[in-house]
């Protein structure tokens, strides 16, 4: 390393040495607080071009001319210091660390840098350091609770599973409604590529962002509103996440060569398991049954032995006594034994070097994650390389190339109670209490073995080892940027980028699984998406008047997206253990959806293009009043020619009240008001104008085609989102308290989406313009710094997010739309006046007069209604994240506590835990129960009257029946087989999400080493949570979701529980 350094240092000083000098000035630069030596600080002669940098030992040496008056010492993150020159030739300079500046520069649309105070809209800034080394490999998950207005939700607790990010709600009916992610100027698709339906199978698919290396992130800004994103146009109506990578920016390092190395190791565990009862085994109503799934059988202490598991006896007769009976006992740890300790290892090395004109940056990272389920893993390797150079003619050129490769392995999810489904967690969390998980999970031939036989589920151990989805994803990003100053006030920027992601997936269902008729199946999915983006910007900033500043940006944007995909399904393995199409005896082109092959999705080529021109005019007055006007016109390939061109403007402004009024208050030191209005247009999906026929699988050897069940409106128009935003930024008591507040009201109208039309029309959907969605919300970022002393600092940051996402209108004649078909009796819907994606499902009938539950006198259970109704709203009331950061000398501690208040979740896991009678919630079962209510007639759905009066229910039912409906339609109870409303819970959850404690070693320790700094930290993730509205002993964490990064929320179908991690992290800079 030293050798390497020694090569560079002379280069750096070359310029300084080569001139003839009058005076040499030397000295040391140290940090004011801890006296650490500062490396890479700049020393310049005021008003002269020459400069120098401090070396590894903090020392500097600069030659100055005799007439030089003063020296300026500066370093990023420190307050610059000027020293008047005298005869003294040796100085010891102490630089003071800079507090977070209010006048920060933020990256806005197309990488245009703006002074924060000039913005008329909210922009969230994320310190990349706050995302790293937190025992969280997913960059989005590590954003949770840190930025107001950003709602991040996870899906499955297995490695690599998708994370959903949403800003200011859903603004389209059926899109994924996730923000546009722009990495180094090129849109970065965050698509979740779903091969199989996640309702009845499908893996914990990842979303595109999982391939991004958090270590390579140089800066991240969140453009929350339409005003901020208007220039990006079409895809920005859900906000924009702008990420600049280190390799993409190839920013000059603070010193000649900077090398950083970071390493983390974490232990990963299942966050929580239910607390189980160990008093009763399988059966029903205290009668033993070896075939039963529920633990409602006799108490363990009432029987010595029971007939053993027939499937096991047949497979392994040698393991069981000849009597055929085994001890009747509980296995308290049978669930726990299914899981193991997982791990996360992450190593990253970054190099950054160069000189005034040239710079180069390299980041290489490796992540290895093993989940708590055997065989689940996520591995990722990233390499990013970027370089920049300044040519003499005034042209700056930058280029970057990054490559990432990830491999995700894991099991299948979904609802197991559907024919042909075989979920990994079908029974894992609610095993019969007398099921021994130490028994072999397969017979001698490798066939799946379950305790109660009957093929109702796959043995979880067998499933984890055999039914595996493997996704290999590769992403290549190549970009170039050139900028040129034509003169002092005209500049041209050109950016061209190509982002290619390719996914190669293999889903295996092994022979003997419950799924695929037990014959085995393989599904291969090959997906490739390429996006090319070209941006040309002309910036004009003439000097017109001392009080007025004008800045005009005009630009052109060309975008092309191409997707290709090939899916093939092979059924009926010829032999076990070979996972190729060649090893199947039936091959079907395309995926199999609900048991039906769909060849028309087998091979797709989709391309769309968009060109746009835009302008952005900013005016400022005396640097305290700012107005920005933008306009953009797009031409899209996906719209009919006549409607292809569409224009949308925005206007925003800000006023720095404190500057305008020249306030000098000891209380308030900064106050800004801002307001903005913007309109953003959006085009259609490709190929959504013509009515087509889809080609089908052969039937009886005959080729088939069918009219596509989606009809299209050939006269689609662009859809628009209009948003008003007002906000303020305030700072009190010399920045001890800072507030950033925004309120917005966003309306998306004339949305392009399929409406469900009646089947009798011959079609299922008609794609057209209609409807309106409204999002209204507030976002508050509050920072309080109670203690700011030389040695001790304490700051508290709170991020508050509240959004109301209401569907305001659909189309005349349509009451509601199904957001996604889940089950006939339950699913997410869109309806005018109701929250987006509200849960609609079966309810039981209540007396129209009193609201009392109607009880079937014949069963003692409730009566289900034939009609579905609203049973929940998955959108939370609000979210709050509170981060406490304390530092004392080199020690630092930060803890993020967050809460999600409100929002409903329908949980299969909780339903099953209750109905199978396995948790302590259902342990007390000796008494019988009467459901409070009145008698009703199941055929009329009306209360039964006796002399005009209702009759209170007196039919007692057993505990078993209370949690497992004895009669689905006419005797619904709670837990299992009941109306969906009873399995829908308020998903409020409080959580200690992230804790980091660490120590930054004093630099004095490394005097003789080439180490610049070293930090060691311990981190913990998801250390504690409580979801108070779920049954107590289920210990259920509602931060799971069946549909990954899609807009379907609030539905959990036997999900893998969340994880908890403990990590140790080291970061060294050379």
């Amino acid at each position, binding site marked *: 390393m030293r050798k390497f350094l020694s090569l560079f240092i002379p280069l750096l000083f070359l310029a300084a040495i080569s001139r003839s000098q009058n005076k040499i000035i030397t000295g040391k630069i140290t940090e004011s607080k801890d006296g650490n030596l500062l490396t890479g600080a700049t020393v310049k002669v005021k008003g002269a071009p020459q400069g120098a940098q401090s070396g590894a030992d903090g020392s500097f040496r600069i030659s100055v001319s005799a007439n030089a008056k003063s020296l300026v010492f500066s370093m990023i993150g420190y307050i610059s210091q000027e020293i008047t020159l005298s005869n003294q030739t040796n100085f010891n300079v102490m630089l003071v660390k800079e507090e977070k500046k209010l006048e920060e520069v933020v990256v806005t649309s197309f990488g245009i840098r703006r002074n924060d105070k000039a913005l008329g809209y909210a922009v969230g800034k994320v310190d990349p350091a706050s995302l790293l080394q937190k025992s969280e490999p997913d960059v989005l998950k590590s954003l949770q609770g840190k930025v107001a207005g950003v709602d991040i939700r996870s899906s499955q607790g297995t490695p690599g599973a998708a994370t959903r990010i949403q800003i200011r709600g859903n603004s389209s009916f059926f899109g994924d409604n996730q923000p546009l992610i722009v990495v180094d100027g090129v849109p970065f698709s965050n698509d979740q590529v779903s091969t199989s339906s996640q309702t009845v199978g499908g893996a914990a698919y990842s979303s595109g962002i999982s391939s991004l290396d958090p270590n390579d992130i140089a800066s991240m800004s969140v453009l929350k509103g339409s005003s901020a994103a208007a220039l990006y146009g079409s895809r920005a109506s859900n906000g924009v996440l702008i990420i600049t990578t280190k390799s993409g920016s190839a920013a000059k390092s603070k010193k000649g060569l900077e090398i950083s190395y970071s390493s983390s190791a974490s232990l990963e565990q299942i966050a929580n398991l239910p607390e189980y009862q160990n008093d009763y085994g399988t059966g029903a*109503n205290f009668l033993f049954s070896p*075939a*039963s799934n529920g633990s409602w059988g006799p108490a363990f202490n009432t029987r010595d032995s029971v007939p053993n598991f027939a499937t096991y006896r047949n497979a392994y007769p040698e393991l069981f006594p000849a009597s055929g009976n085994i001890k009747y006992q509980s296995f308290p740890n049978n669930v726990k034994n299914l899981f193991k300790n997982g791990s996360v290892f992450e190593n990253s090395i970054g190099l950054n070097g160069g000189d005034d004109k040239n710079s180069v940056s390299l980041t290489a990272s490796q992540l290895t994650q093993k989940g708590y389920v055997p065989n689940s893993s996520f591995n990722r390797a990233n390499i990013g390389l970027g370089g920049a150079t300044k040519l003499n003619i005034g042209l700056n050129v930058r280029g970057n190339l990054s490559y990432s490769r990830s491999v995700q392995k894991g099991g299948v999810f979904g609802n197991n109670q*559907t*024919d042909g*489904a*075989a979920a990994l967690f079908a029974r894992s969390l609610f095993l019969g209490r007398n099921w021994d998980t130490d028994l072999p999970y397969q017979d001698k031939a490798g066939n799946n073995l379950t305790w*109660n*036989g009957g*093929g109702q589920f796959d043995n979880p151990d067998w499933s984890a080892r055999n039914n595996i989805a493997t996704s290999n994803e590769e992403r290549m990003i190549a970009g170039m940027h050139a900028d*040129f100053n034509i003169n002092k006030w005209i500049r*041209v920027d*050109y950016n*061209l980028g190509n982002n290619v992601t390719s996914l190669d997936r293999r889903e295996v269902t092994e022979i003997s699984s419950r*799924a695929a008729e*037990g014959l085995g199946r393989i599904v291969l999915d090959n997906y490739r998406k390429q996006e090319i983006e070209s941006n040309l910007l002309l910036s004009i900033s003439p000097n017109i008047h001392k009080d007025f500043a004008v800045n005009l940006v005009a630009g052109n944007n*060309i975008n092309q997206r191409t997707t290709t995909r090939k899916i093939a399904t092979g*059924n009926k393995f010829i032999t076990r253990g070979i996972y190729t199409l060649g090893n199947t005896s*039936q091959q*079907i082109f395309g995926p199999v959806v609900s048991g*039906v*092959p769909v060849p*028309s999705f087998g091979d797709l*080529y989709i*391309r769309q293009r968009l*060109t746009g021109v835009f302008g952005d005019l900013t005016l400022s007055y005396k640097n305290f009043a700012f107005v920005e006007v933008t306009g953009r016109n797009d*031409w899209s*390939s*996906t719209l009919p020619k006549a409607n292809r061109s569409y224009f949308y403007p925005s206007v925003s402004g800000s006023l720095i009240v404190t500057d305008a009024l020249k306030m000098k208050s000891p209380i308030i030191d900064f106050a800004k008001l801002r307001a903005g209005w913007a309109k953003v247009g959006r085009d259609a999906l490709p*190929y959504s*104008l013509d*009515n087509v*026929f*889809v080609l089908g*699988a052969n*039937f*009886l*050897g005959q080729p*088939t*085609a*069918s*009219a596509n069940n989606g009809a299209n409106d050939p006269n689609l128009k662009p859809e628009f989102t209009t948003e008003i935003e007002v906000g303020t930024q305030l700072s009190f008591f010399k920045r001890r308290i800072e507030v950033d507040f925004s309120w917005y009201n966003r309306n998306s109208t004339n949305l392009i989406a399929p409406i*469900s*039309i*009646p*089947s*009798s*029309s*011959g079609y*299922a959907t008609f794609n057209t313009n209609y409807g309106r969605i409204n999002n209204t919300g507030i976002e508050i970022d509050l920072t309080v710094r109670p203690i700011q002393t030389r040695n001790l600092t304490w700051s508290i940051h709170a991020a508050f997010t509240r959004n109301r996402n209401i569907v305001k209108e659909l189309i005349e004649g349509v009451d*509601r739309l199904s957001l996604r078909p889940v089950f*006939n009796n339950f699913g997410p819907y869109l309806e005018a006046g109701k929250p987006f994606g509200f849960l609609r499902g079966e309810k039981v009938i209540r007396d129209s007069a009193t609201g009392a539950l109607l009880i079937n006198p014949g*069963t003692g259970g409730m009566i289900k209604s*034939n009609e*579905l109704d609203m049973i929940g709203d998955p959108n939370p009331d609000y979210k709050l994240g509170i981060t406490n950061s304390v530092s004392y000398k080199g020690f630092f501690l930060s803890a993020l506590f967050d809460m999600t208040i409100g929002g409903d979740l329908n949980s299969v896991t909780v339903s099953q835990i209750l109905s199978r009678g396995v948790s302590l919630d259902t342990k007390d079962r000796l008494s019988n129960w009467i459901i409070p209510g009145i008698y009703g007639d*199941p*055929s009329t759905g009306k209360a039964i009257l006796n002399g005009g009066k209702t009759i209170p229910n007196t039919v007692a039912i057993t505990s078993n029946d209370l949690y497992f409906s004895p009669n*689905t*339609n*006419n005797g619904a109870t709670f837990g299992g087989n009941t109306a969906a409303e009873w399995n829908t819970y308020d998903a409020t959850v409080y959580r200690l999400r992230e804790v980091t404690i660490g120590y930054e070693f004093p630099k004095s320790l490394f005097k003789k080493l080439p180490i610049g700094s070293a930090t060691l930290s311990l981190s913990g993730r998801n250390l504690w949570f409580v979801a108070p509205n779920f049954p107590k002993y289920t210990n259920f964490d509602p931060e799971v979701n069946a549909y990954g990064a899609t807009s379907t929320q609030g539905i959990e179908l036997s999900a893998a529980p969340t994880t908890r991690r403990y990590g140790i992290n080291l970061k060294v800079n050379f």
Partner: protein
Amino acid sequence: MTKLIIYAIPVIFLFTGCKKNFLDINKDPNNPTRVEVSKLLPTAQNALGNALTIGNGNLGGLSQILSVYTHQLTTREGQDQYGYTGSGFYIGTTWVSVYQGALENLEQIIKIASASGDRQYVGIAKVLKAYAYSQLVDAFGDIPFSEANRLDSSIRYPKFDDDAAIYPKLFLLLDEALADLGNTTALNLNKPGTDDVIYGGNIARWIKATNTIKLKLYTQIRKVKDVTTEVNQLLSDPSKLINATNESFLLPYGPNGATDDRNPGFGDYTATQRGNHVSPWFYEILKGYNTRHFTFDISDPRVPYYIYNQVRKATVTADPTEYRDSAFISIYFGSRGPNRDRNAQNVISLMGIYPVGGRYDEGLGGTANAASGTGAAPYRFITYADRLYLEAELIQTGIVTGNAKTKLQAAITESFKQVDYVITTYIKPAQTVPVLSGTVPVTNYISQIILQYDAASAALKMEMIITEKWISSFGSAVDQYTDYRRTGYPIIFNPNDPVMAPGGFVQPPLNGNPQIVGPQPVVLVQLQRPYPNSLPWYQAELETNSNAPGQKDLVNSMKVFWMP
């Protein structure tokens, strides 16, 4: 120079960006806007079959519901106690399969083939269209008809037509079809061949099927309209009707070969949660156990073809069962018994080789799986036997002259032949299956029934005709449901009937369960709904169609117009 290059780069890109056809790339390269009718016909035929068969959880339709309503199957699901609602899965699959799968493609065929002068295709499409609508009317009553499948005329929300007004239009449509099929002057450059999976392009058979559909529809409305002229005219030349076993109007299914073409009803063999039980009521009639029934003491030789027992007589089941008779295991309609909901899917008896292409019961037991059978059983729309039963019914009512007894005898004889024919022609099982027709048990069975028929009252004679038709049509339940509502036959199980279920309890065969010492326990049964006059409409149709009526009252559901 360098400056020039810098300026040139963006200009080049702008130039390419403004290329004339740069944005004209929105023509779908993946899906055609035109196809040949020969590709649409098998889709429509398959969809029509799928709309009517017993289901497998993904495919299938009306028979999955109606086989329970006609007491040939029992389930624990919504069908039990006639509780199937409009949001039930199979109402949805039926509705979607008929309107989107069958009718929309048939309308496309009519449109495309009319333009090209391919009248044979037009004729076939019209027959199938008329038949599809007739099945919907029979099951649901009022349905969208005149405005259905007219999105090209911008009709997004078709109105519901009065069922009584639809039938006359179906007769007109069938007559149009006959004219198209018999059109000798048409160009017919494209003729149906193997793409016609029903008749392989045999136009003569299509004409026979069309006339037989007319005969069936006229018979169905005989109680509300005098159809004497029409049926006598149709019957005047039997050769113009389905007149042989191999002329039956049915949709073939195939094995799980290059593609999976199995009858959805086979799904219980591969299911992960088997839900269909063979009804004990049906079983006891077949076995001759039902003392109130004319088959008492006559065992039906079709039992091992109709029912497959997964266990043997001696098999000890892990859990107690509700209804067991030797190897036959099932649950009752309307059961409230403690053993109804047990995990018994690997011991219950399943539909056998004949209705769904499952297994012929050799008495050896064995858990059903994909290899138990081929699943290649056809869905029978109207068989030759059905035509003979229709004739017997018409003679029995006096609308047509003739000998009802010989017709019934011919019909039952044909019913047995049909089993053999379907097994050898379509199902092609791997196991050896004995021939039924002409065997001693079969001739005995027929002669005993005919002996009883001779002695029976007029009402019982009608009951015998319809009941034998009901037994014969196991697996195709739509017409069974229609026959029951218009004739009152067969007699079905009623848990509220004090004779059938004294005190609300039914008694399985006393010593039917070899594991139990002493009699099998009685089972509590209940029925809390009246018999549905028609099925509820598809809930999603009502919710998406602004011209749809409100959902039917399940209790006093709408009568179909032909009901007396």
